[in-house]
């Protein structure tokens, strides 16, 4: 089964690479490759073929495993819908949590639950925050499992609390904040419709609507080029790498602020995760 999955992934990549070197004019090539990517996505967009569902399965085990000094599972963790209630929780994150008096995204909240409910030393979890060859990530597994429990639901930004409002305003300001040796902000690449880097299409995330909905509704995702399931934390980390910024702190409030802004642009978008992307 695993072998079949790997073969399927390799086949998909070959298709993508082949399309990249076609002799048609560039826009045609870009359109064709976008179509092929769509076809590839459709082909593997079922739970039996998307390797991201391995993360979902591992995440479920992790959620139910007793760990930490308290030797309890995460099943008492409240992600905003009540202790242990997972259905629809991801669709309303990030949100304000009274017990922590903070706005948190899913990853910040999971770390909080590990530290406060399980009394787990999260040093090892943080060291493995991003999976790699021969190294799985508890966070990527848990996010895949929990976000998947919001499939078919609509992104429902929580903005009633003053701290949620502050996060939204800061996230918006950060989206347009230019810095570093390339003078880039998020808006440099994601501020206009229909732009691309080389042949890679860029979603315009500076306005609410369909593009933002489709983007945010498809994270976490299985990245074929990285052979890993990735979360929005990783996506933003990778964006700042390309912007020539230093690495942003994992699970920092700035990244959550940006996520609040992005989810507010994506309000009403349908969640279907883990998706699969290039």
């Amino acid at each position, binding site marked *: 089964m695993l072998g079949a999955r790997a073969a399927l992934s390799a086949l998909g990549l070959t298709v993508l690479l082949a399309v990249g070197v076609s002799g048609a004019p*560039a826009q045609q090539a870009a359109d064709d490759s976008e179509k092929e990517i769509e076809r590839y996505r459709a082909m593997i967009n079922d739970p039996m073929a998307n390797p991201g569902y391995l993360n979902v399965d591992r995440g479920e085990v992790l959620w139910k495993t007793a760990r930490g000094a308290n030797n309890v599972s995460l099943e008492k963790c409240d992600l905003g819908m009540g202790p242990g209630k997972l259905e629809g929780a991801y669709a309303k994150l990030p949100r304000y949590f009274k017990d922590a008096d903070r706005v948190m995204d899913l990853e910040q909240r999971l770390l909080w639950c590990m530290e406060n409910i399980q009394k787990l030393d999260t040093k090892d979890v943080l060291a493995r925050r991003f999976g790699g060859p021969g190294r799985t990530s508890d966070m990527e597994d848990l996010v895949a499992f929990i976000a998947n429990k919001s499939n078919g639901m609509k992104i429902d930004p929580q903005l009633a609390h003053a701290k949620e409002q502050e996060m939204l305003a*800061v996230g918006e300001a950060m989206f347009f904040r230019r810095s570093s040796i390339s003078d880039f*902000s998020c808006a*440099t690449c994601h501020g206009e419709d229909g732009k*691309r*880097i*080389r042949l*890679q299409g860029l979603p315009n995330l500076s306005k609410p609507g369909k593009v933002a909905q489709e983007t945010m509704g498809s994270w976490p995702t299985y990245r074929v080029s990285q052979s890993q399931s990735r979360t929005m934390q990783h996506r933003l980390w990778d964006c700042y790498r390309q912007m020539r910024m230093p690495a942003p702190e994992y699970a920092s409030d700035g990244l959550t602020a940006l996520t609040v802004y992005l989810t507010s642009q994506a309000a009403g978008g349908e969640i279907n995760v883990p998706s699969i992307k290039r």
Partner: protein
Amino acid sequence: MFRKLTLACAALAIAVVAHAQPAPKQATAVDPAVIEAYIKGTWKKVPDGWQARVEQDETQRVCSQYRNNPPLTEFEKILAREKATVVFPGDGNVMGDWKKGEKIAQDGRGGQFSDPPNMVNGGNCYACHQMAKEELSFGTLGPSLAEYGKIRKFSVEEAKSVYAKIFNPQSVQPCSNMPRFGFHRFLSEQQIKDLTAYLMSPDSPVNK
């Protein structure tokens, strides 16, 4: 003098175009100090020599504040400030080797936290611009530069203007999206000369 006047006119024309766009959604009322506190928390462990990348210079700050659409007074301040940073080659020759320029235009490496330190940076021009016709994998964030030199009759003045634009695009167009390659020392004088030749040499594939 005449050249200065032309540039000023061009700058004004750009300003007018910029102001013809619909007004952007006004920046939210959050205190800049609050934003900077979040920035500090997000980049609290920064490698030696990288802190300046987190903090904004005046031009970055003003362009961010006005979302690249500054009022005329700010526009003129940026123009004057950025123009003063442009350093032309000592001998006045801005044309390098277009073949080397092509390699620099294709090369997107350098400057990322995942890159080895002290590597030679690429210009990554094709990420955003169309240039040589046979290169189909080009981005569209910047305008097409196909036949750039040919359209400008390979003029020496235009070559100097290209050098200045690559060195510091905001010396010509305040709040341009393009990186200030020379100002940030991301590209060397020789690399900028080679790129200028790539755009302005009659032999370059850009002009074929």
